[in-house]
């Protein structure tokens, strides 16, 4: 039924956070080693025939033109073909997609994907400098916050979504994050804490936003028919979808939906031969609380305009109808852009395998499908959805 041409056989993360003591190279090495060392039946690095590196802002660790050698050259894999992917918030998941296409093409049997992002090499003030990037007039003042916040304003206006409902996303994800050993933040908050935090970009307070986080994540994928060489419990790529939308914010027709997400999800569901009702767990893009609310609707977990009510009813809690961001999501885990998507895939890998890694936060696996989602990039017009499964039918 699903695509299932590629299997994930191993994943690995490093603890996300303000990693002042870990330069880029160390983050990448550790994520890579954690991955290959975790593979059930052992792994010989010589098996890796190609690699993909996801790093959205190489300039933020001083490597403006990092290229593929920024991965293979530092982990003893010089000689292996490697491509650097830079594609906004879906950078990590898109590197994963490209690696899947590489393996599915039949050219490579085994491939490595690493996503890493160093967000703390420069001062936070310099990170704000993004407000002066791009077209000097059409994008002046445009930061992640100013691209996402207008959707919250409009969603609240059209559907009566409340600030409380937005805050509930942060409260839920903070509760989940406490149980994730890789999470940047590990403390619970209340709706009142969200309201008391500083206004960052109306209508979003500080706790409505994900933090500035360093991190790295990796995965080893291979041809589905040879997965048993590495593990008896591979996780299959049932489907994926990627979509883009317009470049500039003024070109967007709708501010209560990420059109790219809707399109990417449709493609992924079709490829996997399933629908939203078959998803047991979703790791979705919650760079801001409003993003998760829109994701619910865009990915088909509820009707349009119902996102706020879905979280309010607790349906996206770990024990709810459709558990979302059981890992704590970007809001507590952090959002090192290149690593984010692969870290989401790692969580789904563990959950679908009912692995001891996620004992303390294991959700009920009924259908055997997990969904990963990112949306971002200029105009919030880049979206990636991956559906993983523990079954091959």
């Amino acid at each position, binding site marked *: 039924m699903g695509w299932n041409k590629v299997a994930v056989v191993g994943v690995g993360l490093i603890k996300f956070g303000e990693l002042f003591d870990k330069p880029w190279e160390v983050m990448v090495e550790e994520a890579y080693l954690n991955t290959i060392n975790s593979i059930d039946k052992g792994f010989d690095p010589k098996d890796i025939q190609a690699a993909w590196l996801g790093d959205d802002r190489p300039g933020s660790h001083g490597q403006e033109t990092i290229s593929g050698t920024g991965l293979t050259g530092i982990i003893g894999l010089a000689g292996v073909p490697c491509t650097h992917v830079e594609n906004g918030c879906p950078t990590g998941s898109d590197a994963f997609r490209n690696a899947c296409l590489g393996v599915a093409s039949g050219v490579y049997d085994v491939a490595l994907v690493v996503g890493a992002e160093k967000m703390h090499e420069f001062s936070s003030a310099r990170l*704000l400098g993004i407000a002066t990037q791009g077209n000097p007039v*059409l994008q*002046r003042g445009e930061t992640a916050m100013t691209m996402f916040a207008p959707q919250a304003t409009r969603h609240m206006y059209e559907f009566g979504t409340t600030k409380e409902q937005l805050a509930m996303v942060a409260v839920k994800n903070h509760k989940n994050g406490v149980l994730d050993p890789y999470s940047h933040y590990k403390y619970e908050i209340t709706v009142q804490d969200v309201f008391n935090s500083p*206004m960052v970009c*109306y*209508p979003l307070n500080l706790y409505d936003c994900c933090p500035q986080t360093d991190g790295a994540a990796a995965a080893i994928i291979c041809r589905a028919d040879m997965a048993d060489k590495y593990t008896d419990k591979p996780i299959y790529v049932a489907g994926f979808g990627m979509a883009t939308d*317009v470049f500039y914010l003024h*070109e967007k027709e709708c501010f209560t939906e990420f059109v790219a997400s809707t399109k990417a999800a449709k493609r992924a569901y079709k490829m996997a031969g399933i629908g939203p009702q078959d998803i047991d767990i979703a790791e979705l893009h919650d760079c801001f609380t409003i993003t998760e609310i829109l994701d619910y609707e865009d990915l088909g977990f509820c009707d349009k305009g119902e996102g706020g009510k879905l979280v309010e009813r607790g349906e996206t809690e770990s024990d709810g109808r459709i558990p979302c961001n059981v890992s704590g999501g970007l809001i507590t885990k952090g959002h090192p852009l290149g690593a984010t998507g692969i870290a989401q895939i790692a969580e789904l890998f563990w959950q679908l395998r009912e692995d001891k890694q996620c004992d303390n936060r294991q959700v009920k696996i009924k259908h055997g499908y997990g969904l990963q989602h990112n949306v971002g990039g200029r105009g919030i017009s880049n979206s990636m959805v991956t559906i993983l499964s523990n079954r091959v039918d």
Partner: protein
Amino acid sequence: MFPGIKGYGVYIPRYRIKREDIAKSWQGKSRGENSVANSDEDIITMSTEAAQNAVRHAGIDPASIGAIYLGSTSAPNIEQSLLGTIAETLGTNAGTDMMCVGESTRAGTGAVKVCLDAIKAGTINNGLVIAADCRPASPGSDQELNFGVGAAAYILSSDNTVANIEEVFTYSTGFRDLWREAGSSYVKEYEPKLTRGIGRHDHMVNATKGLLASIGIGIDQFQHVVLYQPDARIPRVIAQTLGIKPEQTEKASIFPQLGDTGSSSVLLGLASVLDHAKPGDRILLVSYGSGISDAISLVVTNEIENKRNRGVSLIHYLDSKEYIDYLTYLKLNKALEKGGEPAKMALPPLSPVVVKEGPELHRLIGAKCSKCGYVNFPPSERKICIRCGNTSFEQVLLPRTGKIHTFCISYYLPKGMESPLPIIIADLDDGTRHRALGTEMKPEEVKIDMPVELVLRELASEGGLNLYANVFRPPR
């Protein structure tokens, strides 16, 4: 037939400071108030809005403007065209001449004279004269108590005039008073009493006497007298010398509400008078700046009644105001600046993309798809319709008014950007969606469906170069 004024318009910023609020910070006393430029305003933005009002009042096609003359002492840069951005925003054509008259506060009437001569010589038909000043005053100085800002614009022509220019008389000597050093922001003065006596009083009196003698009439023949108003005192002293009655200067009085607006002072005073004048009224205009005074006599025509209430009048700008405190005033005048390094623009103000897109971004030109009707913006980036893929377009002007579709207000921005900064996504009157920064809106007042209008403002500045673009403002 005398050439004269075909239409006029003004611009006054929204902000005012009470002079007593300045004075009490320096243990002094004062009365009245001054207009204050916002941090994103300068003579280019103020001139543009005044000129847009003048074009509307005159009822002309901006492409028919043969030349633009700007009188000002406060150009952002000593070298570099000031008028290109104004011309682009207005939509004049490539044959339009542009020139700046400077040196002193007499620059406004100086520009009028140059334009008048060009019309009389038959070089141009419609000429645009703008006078604008935005002079920062040194904190604690007498000038700080008096300086205001503003702009006035006039379309001069030989036909359809609302007032004809009857006579001009210029009186000049080698006298020098105020000066501003190259590279320095503040105006200096040697001895205020000297400026007042030998400078302002004597020159304005002599220019007036020369004009009266030339026409052969007395001062009592003028229904209105507009004198340069650098302070509250000078117009009173000159009125005494020349026998001008209070009712003759009443309508021209702008100093109490605006302060010394420099080059634009007399032309703002004239706009105030024209708003009230009747056909047949005779108006005397007397300017002054550093050893030169122009006296100009005008006669109002019947056409004035036909053009009443077109565009935004001075009284609207005077009434729509907001008081700021002295700390805000210092920040707006850049006398007090936030520390730290400003974020560098990825593409600075003279990047090729800015040069290429400038005209369409300033003028708000869109490319309307001939198949699906979607207005692609800006046209130079769009050879293919983003909605339907069609490749043929018709150029259209975007409307400058609309309603907010959605927005956010950013509180965390790098140095060099005002915070809180509203970012507005609005649907313009023709349905085109537009995104721009917001200015002069309080965070708690911004709402979906709120009406907004697009005005030219300084968007960014780097290395002494300003970048101008349209931003949203609540309608005034």
